């Protein structure tokens, strides 16, 4: 770097920023092939949900475009009994019974028929096959999976942000201040974490769902709140340990010696030094919360019926599997597996890249 610099260093005043720890971490991440592939996958998913949010893709996921349980296009030859039944019902002719002599409305039928004829009815033909098949109502499973990704990832990301935020603040206070504050928080943490996790989530869900104050808060925001408010415990413990460790480091003492306040020492000095822990925890919790949202929705406590998430898709899939319609399960399962795996591997690479050994 210095060799390059000497050519122009005489001219311009030296304002050359040198690589900070984040820049170095990014360089190391770029060399990690697995990490970069995972990053590309994750970015692809994020772009996809941005697309579905703005309506560029999967806008019409709720349109019933295909026949019930439409076959995936690569299985177009397969027999679709469900669709046949539906079609038969709609075309079946009921034997005509003449009731005109006893029907008081009989003289008006003709008039009504003429009037209905004036209204144009265009019946969209339902597709026999869809790209990745259809669900019970003939909705495109692929579009559902994309839209479902939007809900699931959104829930995972926001809930992870909330949990990391709570965990970091509480962990910082407890680890840095210690003493009575620390003791109190440890008690609170112990009580909180002594409740089995799933039970805790269900309890929160039950309270939220039944309280009238939360009425316009149901659905996705509720899921986010539940996950965020219950998921901070692990992060709290880690951040607390980091703050205890860093609190006694010389650079913090040096900051105290120059007169930096407590909050400055906590958040300006120590926090950037433990931020890699926050980041890794954040991404781990995104994965965990995506899975938790699936569980919640599967149990019927998650997102409402008028929207779709990977969890609701999986919940629907259990009845479909019985009649051999596997593609909804596959679509939700595969996309979730890809994202979660990519995210986990990205997290691992991030941890390697951010490992502050170079200090």
């Amino acid at each position, binding site marked *: 770097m210095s060799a390059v610099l000497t050519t122009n260093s005489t001219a311009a005043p030296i*304002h050359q920023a*040198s690589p900070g720890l984040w820049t170095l971490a990014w360089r*190391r991440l770029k060399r990690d092939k697995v990490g970069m592939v995972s990053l590309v996958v994750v970015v692809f998913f994020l772009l996809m949900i941005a697309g579905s949010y703005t309506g560029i893709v999967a806008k019409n996921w709720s349109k019933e475009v295909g026949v019930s349980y439409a076959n995936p296009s690569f299985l177009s030859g397969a027999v679709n009994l469900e669709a046949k039944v539906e079609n038969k019902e709609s075309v079946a002719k009921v034997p005509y019974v003449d009731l005109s002599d006893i029907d008081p409305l009989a003289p008006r039928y003709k008039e009504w028929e003429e009037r209905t004829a004036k209204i144009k009815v265009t019946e969209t033909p339902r597709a026999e096959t869809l790209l990745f098949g259809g669900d019970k109502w003939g909705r495109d499973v692929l579009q559902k999976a994309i839209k479902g990704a939007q809900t699931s990832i959104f829930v995972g990301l926001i809930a992870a942000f909330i949990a990391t935020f709570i965990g970091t603040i509480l962990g910082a206070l407890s680890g840095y201040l210690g003493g009575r504050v620390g003791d109190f928080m440890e008690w609170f943490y112990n009580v909180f974490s002594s409740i089995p996790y799933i039970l805790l989530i269900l309890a929160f869900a039950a309270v939220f769902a039944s309280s009238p104050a939360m009425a316009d808060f149901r659905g996705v925001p509720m899921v986010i709140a539940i996950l965020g408010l219950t998921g901070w415990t692990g992060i709290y413990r880690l951040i607390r340990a980091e703050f205890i460790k860093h609190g006694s480091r010389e*650079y913090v003492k*040096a900051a105290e*010696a*120059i007169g*930096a306040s407590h909050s400055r020492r906590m958040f300006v000095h120590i926090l950037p*030094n433990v931020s890699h822990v926050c980041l890794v925890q954040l991404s781990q919790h995104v994965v965990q919360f995506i899975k938790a949202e699936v569980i919640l929705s599967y149990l019927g406590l998650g997102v409402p019926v008028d929207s779709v998430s990977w969890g609701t898709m999986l919940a629907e899939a259990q009845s479909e599997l019985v009649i051999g319609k596997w593609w909804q399960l596959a679509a939700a399962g595969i996309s979730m597996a890809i994202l979660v795996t990519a995210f986990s591997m990205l997290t691992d690479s991030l941890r390697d890249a951010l490992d502050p050994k170079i200090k």
Partner: protein
Amino acid sequence: MEHILQVKDLNVKFRLDGGAIFDAVKGTSFDIPRNSTVALVGESGSGKSVSAMSIVRLLPREQAILSPRSEVLFNGENLLRATDARMRDIRGKDISVIFQEPMSSLNPVFSVGNQVSEVLRLHMGMTKAQAWTRSEELLNEVGIPHPKLRMNSYPHELSGGQQQRVMIAMAIACEPKLLIADEPTTALDVTIQKQILDLIAKLQASHHMSVLFITHDLAVVGEIADTVVVMQNGEIKEQGTARQIFESPQHPYTKALLMCRPNVSKRPMRLPVIEDFMGPAGLQPEHLAQRHRGYAPDDEIVLEVKNLSKHFQLKEGLFKKRDVPAVKGATFKLARGKTLGLVGESGSGKTTVGLTLMRLHSASGGEVLFDGVDLLKLSERDFMKYKRRIQIVFQNPYASLNPRFTVGQILLEPMTIHKIGKDEQERVQMAMALLQRVGMPEVSFYKYPHEFSGGQRQRIAIARCLTMKPDVLICDESVSALDVSVQAQVLNLLQDLQDEYKMSYIFISHDLAVVKYISDQVMVMSDGDVVEVANSDEIYLNPKQEYTKKLLGSIPKGWQEEKAA
């Protein structure tokens, strides 16, 4: 065969992050004769440890590249070509190594006896009972008191010196033919250092082994080495018998290494540094002007400390608390523009005095009068005004700078907190000026601490204190973690700054030669007690207390002093 080990044309390169190659050792050759001690001396980065580690093949496999021409002949066998199994056999049995940090080299969850006897069982095929008995003899031989009891102790129950003795016991357990000691005394107090050096010298003679002793401090090896090899930047600058090296050094670098360590008998105005010797003219150290030290009766007193004491409370059991006194009634005065040296072994309470003065620890009693105001009685808010006037430079420059701050942020922060300077622009200018003052280029302003060496970081830490223009600067072992040559530069800088800004220093160190050089008055501490306070020349020429005499006796004397004595 005369030589137990011959290193021939050793070339080691390291693969760095990003594919760059770093030449660590560039074709060094040296021999270790039987029954003798060879010292490998050089600054950090000189390749001395790398050379030693490549003898036992303990370099990281992925990064280190050894040249195919290199040879390490141990009794005629090329170790660089030996199989891994053969190397495992040799390591610990024929060649053993002791490291710098005894605390991290011992396993904390096994008892000392367990760890020593494990070596014996693995390499000598002894039974458990045999190994245990032999371990006890070994602990006795390396001078651990009550070896029978200590066999069941865990590493944390031993002092640093005792831990190093255990490491030595493990190293000599299998009667090795070669002992490699990698800076074995650097982390220890002077008094302990002396004991360990004596022990190694004694064992070398009684066990008929050879020792390869690695250090950055030439003075340390004067008493024990037969042959000295001086390395710089991966090359051997000079090698010869200890007499040649100490009495008539040929290479300017060797001369510089010998001279830049403060000497108890001389006190030049500035310490000579390596560059002085490497210049075209060289340097005639005999003609350096000498500096006079000591308090004068009309000195203005900046800081007066009366009966300062500090107790730490240890919890015992559930509810009991026990007071552990760290400082028991320290009383001293600090004059403007003068330096008070604080010496003592670790645990003597010297650092606690420094931290308590600044209220980084709360004091248990006593007064600290600064401009007639008792700092210990002020409220947090009132103390803020005084905070900038007493500052501290810590020991470890790698830990005392926040790694996520640029040097600029580090320097601007205290000015922002204490509202020094009109606006940001003026502060930046002041920071730039200070960087130049401590001998750092202005580009450093935009860099991060990890891009600098230890000495440079210590300069940055000093610049950070200077931003607040303090009256009193506490240097807590500020040069102890640095190489002797870098130490001389930082000491010179501190001296220049004192002359320029008339600052007063409290200089805390375990190194008596450094304290003698920089201090006007010296305070000797032991177990929290002030043993002796006097002008520095007086205390060194005419120590009154037994403890002071003992401390002075353990200063490494190098070669010439020993001959004179």
